[in-house]
């Protein structure tokens, strides 16, 4: 039931006129087989980790990717960086389709795209020194002679003391470790950096330091970011455009402020409303909190039709009944359609601006 | 679960097949002497060797011999059982060259001895090891911990035959002269007390040998478990400490012990060779080793097969027990 979205569909999503995207993802799908068996592995099911995802990332921009745990954010990131093979769909980087590339062919492209990881503890090999970790890209890609000097320059750039070249990662705090990870990603001078929840594990004060660093690096090196987080505040803070994922699909994509001010997909709306508002200056933009019922369904066996329909308040609003949703939502997955210029949402009944999202409000 | 068990059984069958194949290769293909010579007597003639070889089936090609072996195993050997040999049947393990008795019968007779030894020893070392482990985990670095672990370490460090001989020396006729502890095996059905007293020493020796592993494992697991969040939850409920440890801590820390326990018992079925020899228990291990020494190939293959089956069955049992103990496994 994968629906082939015409490249034009999502490709247009937020396209800046006449610009070639740096990354272009089309109908990307990844299933993880669930296997059983002692000798011969039989497939008894598959995790629909990423399903029919299409979007573009333009040079110099930051695309934020939000979604709850298990919605397929990391998988998407891995597919783009070709750390795993996709089930179907394509990824183009800099105009070149890399989906079918061998490891050898990928080698030069690896220099162009790098990753920053979530866990500053597990993303650094505890048995290597900072010099080895940050220098590894040079050693592997054989691009640099004076590795030490380069590494120390990088360390300086990300705010680490270059004299700590020979220290092991456990001698550093979480924030410093994350800086090491950033230095490693920067080493090869990439165009794209995929940041998979780079600040989720950090305390607020450190998190802010890292966010600032990322921002200044982007300016200095004209980097393009794919920034993944489940913290909507953070994503909002760093992103130009934002894509929202739910159960392996992108349900809404659009420019950051638009999307936050005016979510069109009911899930996005619910998600935003669930965020602790914090202490807003005047409580501005406070929205009624929509508490979703139930949990996210299993990606092994996603619901038919719109994947969000079992929890969707809008669908209930439309049907007018607590226990009923419209036929269409139950049977057909809505395409990621353009609801505004540059705004795409996958919903049969997009939320209207200002519309309250619960039944009581309507009654 | 049912299908899982069936698949596991198929896998077990495959392991057994591979193990017998390996046994076959090692004992039939690689060995130095022709068993036929051994069984042809002190001054063989060509004719007698030929005849013996034929009667032992050694004149056939090796694949054929293996095929015959598998065929007998699957269909039983009652039909071709020679006159006067008792205990043929299914599964056919054929006849010992050495004694011309059915290997199957031999195994049926010796099995209980080995199982008595293995099970009794296992229960003893489980109790011993787990208790030591708990004490050590709860009273880390205390005198009790040190003494218990030291005792266990000594057991682990001493060679089993040394321990066995020492035990016999100390308790046997030369030492304390406790006759009840003497060697040999007494049928349980005929004299349960004798059965028990004759097994006490071998059990103890085995227990000493294994207790340290279990103590160490229990200790490590328990220390691990006691650091888990759910133990904190149990304490936060206001449960008494004893209950926290015995009910919540032990349950989780003993599950890996179960796996090891099952496999150890299974391996002892063919592995308690030395203990069986020292204490004259005449079980399967002893039988197998003697048979191997005398090139009694069907007996060797037969015992190996039994052991492989025991291991396979035990690992299945362990899995089932594990699933019983740990619901996460059950539902995954």
């Amino acid at each position, binding site marked *: 039931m994968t629906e082939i979205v015409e490249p034009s569909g999502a490709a247009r999503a937020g396209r800046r006129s006449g610009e070639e995207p740096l990354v272009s993802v089309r109908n990307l799908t990844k299933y993880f087989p669930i296997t059983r068996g002692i000798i011969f592995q039989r497939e008894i099911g598959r995790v629909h980790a990423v399903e029919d995802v299409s979007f573009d990332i333009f040079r110099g921009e930051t695309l934020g990717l939000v979604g709850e745990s298990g919605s397929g954010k990391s998988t998407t990131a891995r597919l783009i960086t070709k750390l795993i093979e996709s089930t179907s769909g394509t990824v183009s980087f800099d105009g070149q389709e890399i989906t079918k590339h061998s490891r050898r062919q990928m080698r030069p492209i690896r220099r162009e795209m790098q990753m920053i990881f979530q866990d500053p503890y597990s993303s650094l090999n505890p048995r290597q020194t900072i010099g080895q970790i940050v220098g590894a890209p040079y050693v592997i890609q054989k691009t640099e002679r004076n590795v030490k000097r380069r590494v120390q320059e990088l360390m300086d750039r990300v705010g680490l003391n270059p004299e700590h070249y020979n220290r092991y990662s456990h001698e550093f705090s979480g924030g410093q470790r994350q800086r090491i990870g950033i230095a490693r990603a920067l080493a090869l001078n990439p165009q794209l950096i995929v940041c998979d929840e780079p600040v989720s594990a950090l305390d607020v004060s450190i998190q802010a330091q890292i966010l600032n660093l990322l921002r200044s690096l982007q300016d200095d090196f004209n980097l393009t970011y794919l920034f993944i987080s489940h913290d909507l505040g953070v994503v909002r803070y760093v992103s130009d455009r934002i894509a929202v994922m739910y159960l392996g699909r992108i349900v809404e994509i659009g420019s950051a402020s638009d999307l936050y001010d005016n979510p069109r997909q009911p899930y996005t709306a619910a998600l935003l409303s669930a965020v602790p508002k914090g202490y807003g200056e005047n409580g501005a933009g406070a929205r009624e909190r929509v508490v979703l019922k139930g949990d996210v369904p299993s990606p092994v066996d996603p619901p038919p039709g719109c994947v969000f329909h079992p929890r969707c308040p809008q669908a209930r609003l439309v049907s007018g009944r607590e226990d009923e949703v419209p036929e269409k939502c139950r049977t057909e997955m809505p395409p990621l359609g353009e609801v505004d210029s540059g705004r795409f949402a996958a919903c049969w009944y997009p939320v209207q601006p200002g519309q309250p999202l619960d039944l009581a409000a309507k009654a | 679960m049912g299908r899982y068990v069936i698949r596991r059984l198929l896998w077990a069958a495959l392991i057994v097949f591979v193990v017998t194949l390996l046994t076959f290769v090692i004992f039939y293909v690689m060995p130095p002497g022709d068993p036929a010579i051994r069984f042809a*007597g*002190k001054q063989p003639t060509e004719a*007698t060797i030929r005849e013996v070889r034929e*009667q032992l089936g050694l004149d056939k090609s090796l694949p054929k011999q293996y095929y015959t072996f598998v065929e007998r195993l699957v269909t039983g050997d009652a039909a071709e059982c020679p*006159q*006067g040999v008792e205990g043929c049947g299914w599964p056919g393990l054929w006849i010992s060259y*050495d004694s011309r008795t059915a290997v199957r019968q*031999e195994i049926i007779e010796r099995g209980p001895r080995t199982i008595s030894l293995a099970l009794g020893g296992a229960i003893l070392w489980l109790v011993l090891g787990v208790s030591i482990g708990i004490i050590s985990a709860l009273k880390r670095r205390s005198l009790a911990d040190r003494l218990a672990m030291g005792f266990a370490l000594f057991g682990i460090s001493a060679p089993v035959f040394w321990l066995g001989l020492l035990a016999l020396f100390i308790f046997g006729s030369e030492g304390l002269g406790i006759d009840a502890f003497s060697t*040999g095996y007494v049928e349980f059905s005929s004299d349960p007390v004798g059965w028990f007293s004759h097994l006490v020493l071998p059990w103890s020796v085995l227990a000493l040998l294994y207790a340290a592993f279990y103590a160490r494992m229990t200790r490590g697991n328990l220390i691990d478990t006691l650091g888990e969040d759910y133990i904190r939850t149990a304490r936060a409920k206001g449960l008494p400490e004893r209950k926290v440890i015995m009910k919540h801590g032990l349950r989780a820390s003993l599950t890996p012990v179960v796996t090891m326990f099952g496999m150890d018992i299974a391996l002892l079925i063919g592995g308690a060779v030395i203990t069986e020899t020292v204490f004259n228990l005449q079980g399967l291990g002893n039988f197998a080793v003697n048979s191997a020494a005398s*090139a009694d190939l069907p007996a060797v293959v037969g015992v190996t097969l039994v052991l492989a089956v025991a291991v396979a069955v035990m690992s299945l049992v362990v899995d089932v027990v594990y699933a019983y103990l740990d619901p996460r496994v059950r539902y995954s």
Partner: protein
Amino acid sequence: GGDDGGGGDEQAATDTGEDAGGEPQRGGTFRIQTDAFEWTGNFDPTGEYLGTALGFYSSLLVRNLMGYRHVGGPEGNELIPDLAEAEPEISEDGLTYTFKIKPGVKFAPPVDRDVTSKDVLYAFKRIGTPSLVAQYGFYYSVIEGMAEFTEKGGLSAKGTNEISGIETPDDQTITFKLTEPTGDFLFRLSMPAAGPIPEEVAKCFMKAGEYGRFLIATGPYMLEGSDNLDATSCKSMKPLPGFNPNQRLIMVRNPNYDEATDTKEARENFVDRWEMTLNTNAQDIFDRVKSGSVELAHASEPPEVIREYTQNEDLKKNYHSDPGDRTWYITMNLTQPPFDDIHVRKAANLIMDKEGLRRAWGGSVKGDIAQHIVPDTMFNDELEDYAPYATEGDAGDVDKAMEEMKQSKYDTDQDGMCDAPQCKGVLHVTRTTDVWKAMVPVIEESFRKIGIQVTTREFEDSYTVIQTVKRQAPVSSTPGWGKDYADASTFMVLFDSRSILAEGNVNYSLVGLTGEQAKEVGAAGTTSGIPSIDADIDECNKLQDDERLSCWQDLDQKLMEEIVPWVPYLDANADFVTSDAVTHYVYDQFAGEPGWAHIAMDPSAG
């Protein structure tokens, strides 16, 4: 294979029976423990060739035409009529033997009938049947028609098949016709395979060893459960509980045995019941004998037991050691360097620390140092003083050995040390059992003194290694050889080139091997200059009595001086330890085992 227990039969010399005061009493259960049930092949008299089993048959279970007294010393090696009424009639040319069978000798239940000449004939037919694998069937090939009978398939042949050389004109008479004069034929007839077998039971068991668990006795005892055997059909017969080849041998009195048909000289039969069981812990067996829960240990005594029993006055009477008519030796392969040089072989004899080897066995009580091939008792001690390689204290003599070594081509610089490359890493095969392991250092060190460095390999099954010509072990300390009966011919087969086989060979030294034969059997070493003694053997075999004896003696000396295939080191004793309950112990020279037929115990014990 030529096991240490194997073929131990000997001749009588001395009655070593010791009375522990008072008349021996009847009754009692005699308990024996053995550390391995390897003393029997499978207890079928036709195929069985191991000494202990032969001893049980001969004294307790099977009555042959001619039998032994089952006592020690020369007397024990003499034949007396047993099943036969009297000595046989032998024709002038020595080719025909006629026996009359005693009336009133009956088979044990369930057969319950008189033994007839047909039953003896039937035993021979079984010997001649290939599928029954008569291990010493070659002894009977001198009987006319035996070879043809076998060729046709023996009892398995289609149609009638008879042995032309054996006739049974009536139930009491049996005649054997031989193809050539055979000085030791009566000895051969006294081997258990030639004892009567009831066809009605045995016909069901036509594979090697099957009959062992159904043995129908003619002697004073029978396997336990014999009386309950349902012999109505082959199918109905279940193995007798009295014999389990891995665990036990239990014998009880045979109700059909009539003392009147026997003599006290041969059998006294004091004991009511025999129980032989397995105990894998030898140490424990001896502890049990000492404590009285077992009457006799059928296991080789550890030195400490020997010491204890020989030094402790109270225990001394319970230790019994008698000549076993068995030589233990180191065999050297005449085709393999450096032993293809006779000087090296002589040097080996001179250098070997035989006393050291004997201590590995447990010291002097284990036997005399062997100086030549055939045990002295078998030569009536006539060669007792013959010691071509004697050395001071039997410790080996470096000077003499080096003197000999100098003459060898492997001593390139004539300094008395083997220094050719062939002297290094010489493979020495031995077994894994205690005594042999203990001998290893002595052998290695002895050889080292004349420059031969041996590499020892221990095998559980070392006989099958040295019996396979292809494996070419240059030297092995594995073997020992015992007589089958009191005639040196049973030793000389070991040097008969005609008995060399590719596998199963017992002429380990390959004496007499020709180049042609070498190819056939896969011997790779040199064959040049290997002498043969086949003609000498044939010569002696034709002779009888004293001539025969001295012929063998000469041959023994020739072997020791001109061929030197062995380093013999021990004329082994057969020694046993009994408990206090054993009141009367007699040694059986024929079997090299306790004289079961005369042993008595305190019936209240056990």
